């Protein structure tokens, strides 16, 4: 006789912490553990583990440095009772929490919880699992370290505030966790639809241009001011006076926003106003609910079975068919054309390529702190900005077959040698990089002024060396440590670290060679010497690249099985 067990409304007994839900969490945790353990059977899995460990060490160092900095700042503010400046720290943390995952999006892994939808999982459980997967991200780790730093700084200066500081910072941290998760969940959704994707792209471009204009205007003011220190203060004072009412309004408005509320909670606790403090905390709690609601709304749609690729299919169906064809009928032209079309249709790849440009502005700002600074005072700024743009090409250079998916089979079935495929990809990616590098150079010039010609020449020569180095290493990585790229997501799939981190280290190595040569020659007053040195190194790098390309067919055949298996892996 069949036994029918009573089940809950959603097919599971109990709530999201009930017996069934707990059994599901345990099953998922065990599944993740087994996947991790089984992954270690392969060299790739071991490399991935090692790379992940190193990546987290780097995140830890970054987070600790920031935490110590914020601790010092918070201590300084708390010991001087300059509480009115505390919101600046909270805003900085919020900004970092949001920007850090964007900056490292193409290095960050993301697990897809969509596979859980086939099981009778409650929405609450789905929500919790989504949050837990978010807790294990680098941005949360760094953000929490920053919050701890602020807490420690305040507590050292004012031990009586430890509870209030802990309470305020905890709610603030929860808000940021929810906000970042909600923002990313919505970005995924917007990127999946043509109309919202275009709006998002336009907003991004407008922000980018605004930042560019503000930066160059501000730089100009500072540059003018740097001629005379007394005059230097004048433009700033002018600006402050001119916009004083606006700044005042801004300061008032920010008090109602989460970073301002977090700081206000502490300020009111200090002023012995616990009721007001709790009110601010309650307001911050409302923001937490709001961010949680935004996230829940998005996840609810996913939970109901919304498929982002399906969402994209409807608008792509009426999209442009692509009426252009590159000249020539040879396989080389075919691959370049296919690669270009795929790239233009993959927002995450475009994102990865273009985001470094945004950060070039930030990097340029780092070299512009002193009013007396200009390009002549720090000549490495220009090459460093151009080199940074290279980071966006990590995926294209070092995993250049990753976007093929099942199409990788065609490359082995067809009579076209793999080296032709790789050569075509390398050349297209190089052209794209030259364009992006050029844009980064222009941005850097707008921010810092045009560098001396010798720096331009040396940077160009370094690029001639750096490009084949990256291409050569990229071919080896692409054939031996590929990972499948999901064209609908900014983040990388699990298991990509084995490729990503060593690739980043090689890029850093190539950059290190450049910095060393630059430094050596400049310190010995031989400013033109880097050019012939880099060109000589470039000859060697090009030779190595050509040899690696020459042997790429054999290498590809040697790794054919794992290459096909990895790239055809179901998402």
């Amino acid at each position: 006789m069949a036994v029918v067990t009573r089940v809950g409304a959603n097919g599971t007994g109990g709530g999201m912490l009930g017996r069934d839900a707990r059994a599901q969490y345990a099953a998922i945790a065990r599944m993740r553990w087994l996947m991790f353990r089984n992954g270690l059977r392969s060299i790739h899995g071991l490399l991935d583990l090692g790379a992940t460990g190193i990546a987290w060490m780097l995140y830890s160092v970054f987070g600790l440095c920031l935490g110590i900095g914020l601790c010092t700042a918070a201590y300084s503010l708390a010991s001087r009772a300059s509480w009115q400046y505390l919101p600046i720290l909270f805003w900085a943390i919020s900004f970092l929490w949001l920007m850090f995952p964007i900056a490292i999006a193409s290095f960050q892994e993301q697990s897809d919880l969509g596979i859980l939808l086939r099981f009778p999982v409650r929405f609450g459980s789905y929500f919790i699992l989504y949050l837990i997967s978010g807790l294990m991200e680098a941005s949360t780790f760094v953000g929490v370290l920053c919050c701890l730093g602020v807490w420690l700084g305040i507590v050292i200066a004012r031990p009586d505030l430890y509870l209030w500081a802990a309470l305020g910072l905890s709610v603030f941290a929860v808000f940021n966790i929810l906000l970042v998760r909600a923002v990313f969940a919505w970005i995924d959704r917007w990127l999946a639809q043509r109309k919202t994707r275009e709006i998002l792209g336009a907003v991004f471009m407008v922000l980018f241009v605004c930042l560019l204009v503000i930066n160059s205007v501000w730089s100009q003011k500072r540059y003018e001011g740097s001629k005379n220190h007394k005059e230097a203060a004048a433009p700033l004072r002018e600006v402050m006076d001119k916009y004083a009412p606006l700044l005042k309004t801004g300061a008032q408005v920010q008090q109602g926003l989460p970073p301002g509320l977090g700081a206000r909670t502490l300020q009111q606790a200090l002023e012995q106003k616990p009721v007001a403090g709790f009110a601010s905390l309650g307001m911050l709690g409302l923001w937490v609910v709001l961010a949680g609601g935004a996230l829940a709304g998005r996840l609810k749609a996913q939970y109901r079975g919304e498929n982002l690729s399906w969402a994209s299919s409807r608008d792509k169906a009426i999209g442009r068919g692509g009426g252009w064809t590159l000249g020539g009928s040879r396989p080389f032209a075919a691959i370049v054309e296919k690669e270009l079309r795929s790239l233009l249709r993959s927002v995450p790849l475009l994102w990865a390529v273009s985001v470094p440009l945004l950060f070039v502005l930030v990097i340029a700002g780092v070299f512009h702190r002193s009013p007396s600074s200009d390009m002549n005072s720090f000549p490495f700024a220009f090459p460093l900005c151009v080199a940074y743009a290279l980071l966006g090409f990590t995926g294209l250079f070092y995993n250049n077959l990753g976007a093929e998916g099942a199409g990788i089979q065609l490359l082995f079935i067809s009579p076209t040698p793999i080296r032709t495929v790789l050569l075509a990809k390398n050349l297209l990616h190089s052209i794209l990089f030259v364009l992006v590098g050029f844009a980064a150079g222009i941005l850097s010039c707008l921010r810092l002024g045009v560098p001396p010609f010798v720096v331009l020449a040396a940077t160009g020569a370094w690029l001639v060396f750096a490009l084949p180095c990256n291409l050569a290493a990229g071919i080896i990585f692409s054939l031996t440590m590929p990972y499948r790229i999901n064209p609908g997501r900014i983040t990388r799939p699990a298991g990509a670290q084995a490729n990503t981190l060593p690739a980043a280290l090689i890029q850093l190595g190539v950059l290190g060679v450049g910095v060393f040569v630059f430094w050596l020659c400049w310190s010995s007053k031989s400013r033109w010497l880097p050019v012939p040195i880099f060109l000589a190194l470039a000859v060697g790098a090009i030779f190595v690249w050509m040899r690696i390309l020459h042997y790429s067919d054999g290498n590809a055949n040697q790794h054919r099985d794992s290459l096909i298996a990895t790239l055809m892996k179901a998402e």
Partner: protein
Amino acid sequence: MEIPAIQTNGLTRFFGALAAVEDVTLSVAPGQFFGFLGPNGAGKSTTIKMLTGLLEPSAGTIDILGQRFGPEARELKRQIGVVPEGMALLGRLTAPEYLHFVGRMYGLDAATTNQRTEELLEFMQLAGEGRKLVTDFSHGMQKKLAMAAAVIHGPKVLFLDEPFEGVDAIAAGMLKNMLTGMINRGATVFLTTHVLEIVERLCSHVAIISKGRLVAIGSLDELRAGVASALPGVEQGQRFTLEEIFLAILGADGHPESTQELSWLL
């Protein structure tokens, strides 16, 4: 003596200690519609992957159209068309773009590629889907596109791994006609499928693989005769279906009838 279109000798593939395909020796004559059958996990896809250059054999040789086949046999690859297990599609292209790409990868000139692309899209009833990305195609449409890509360069030997899976009856009929036409014009088709009726209707010769080993090979009539002589109590003139032949040859390996019951099922 006629050169076989496909000839394997001692074809073997190990995955670690497991022999997925072991010592497979077979010969397919030109113009033959050859069915390659076997239960799940028998080694069909592994064999076809080795025959098409997607997997390296651990041992044994492959000759296609009289030439030794390997990763470097590029000219030979121009004579081969493949619909592999994963279909080898590029999701971010439209169907015409994909066919253009494939045609050019096989070295066709632009005019020929254009003309064949149009014809194939029309023939496969995909002409109206020219603006849709391949990733958004239904499974059946993807199969049709994969089939179109496999024949755009006019191959002499066609390898098809489950080409009819997920394809509607009308499209399946159309594909069958196309394949029959190719056979009539001298092409060779090597087909793996689980749909035995299709094999029975289309194929003149069949091989059955089980646990990585070839257990039967021959024309359908030869297999029928073999089964009739091996089975006791078979009446004179009794005509076996391919399914009966399949089950008779595989016996317990094929799990024809399970006597076990699953206690929790109603």
